[in-house]
């Protein structure tokens, strides 16, 4: 079976429809496929206790996503002063690793600042630090539904000197469902 991005987005639309109707929703990973309803029912029964606990953990909550994008690109091969090519390579790797480590620490600072800003409306957070060369941080926040709109505006107003902050959602709690 070939599935497409349109199918994935349709899945999201369906999950969102359910999410807007109930107080607690556990999105299933896309794609989640069963032969028939009986098979699905059997799996839900088998996992019932675990899923009930997971539902309680997200009851009344939704997810906000935050992406922090570096405003200046990191230099892949920094200039170093070395005559020999081997030494030059080693110094470049040292500078690159040091730069990457500085970036990682900076990304953690940004995460901590955003989580503090979220305040009492934040239940849980999950971070991906430096997931790519352009992105400092991909942050998932499980927040109280009633507080989500105001919290989103608050986070969008955040300014950091070297990253641009993008806030997404509110979404069903994908990151906190599994």
């Amino acid at each position, binding site marked *: *079976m070939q599935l497409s991005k349109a199918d994935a987005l349709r899945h999201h639309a*369906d999950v969102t429809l359910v999410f807007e109707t109930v107080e607690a929703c556990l999105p299933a990973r896309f794609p989640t496929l069963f032969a028939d309803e009986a098979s699905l029912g059997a799996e839900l029964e088998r996992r019932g206790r675990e899923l009930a606990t997971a539902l309680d953990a997200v009851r009344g909550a939704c997810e906000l996503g935050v992406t922090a994008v570096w405003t200046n690109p990191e230099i892949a091969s920094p200039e170093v002063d070395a005559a020999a090519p081997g030494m030059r390579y080693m110094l470049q790797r040292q500078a690159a690793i040091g730069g990457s480590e500085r970036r990682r620490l900076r990304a953690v600072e940004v995460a901590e600042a955003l989580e503090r800003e979220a305040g009492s409306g934040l239940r849980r957070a999950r971070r991906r630090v430096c997931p790519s060369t352009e992105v400092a941080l991909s942050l998932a926040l499980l927040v109280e539904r009633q507080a989500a709109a105001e919290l989103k505006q608050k986070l969008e107003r955040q300014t950091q000197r070297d990253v641009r902050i993008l806030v997404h959602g509110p979404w069903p709690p994908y990151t906190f469902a599994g």
Partner: protein
Amino acid sequence: MLPTDEEFTLLELTDRLLNRGVVLAGEAVISVAGVDLIYLGLNVVLTAVENLRTRREPAALRNHDAAED
């Protein structure tokens, strides 16, 4: 060139759809947009969402569609 804000949002959402959420059954292999993930040999029958979707559609639209049938 960096992705636009909308593209970042779509990337974040797609990441959640494909990599997060409850995993209920993991035996199948499927291909999503040409990327092989897991093997699939199942058919899907899920009626709950269809029922919800039907209830959310305006009654006039449902009646109009029914009349055309």
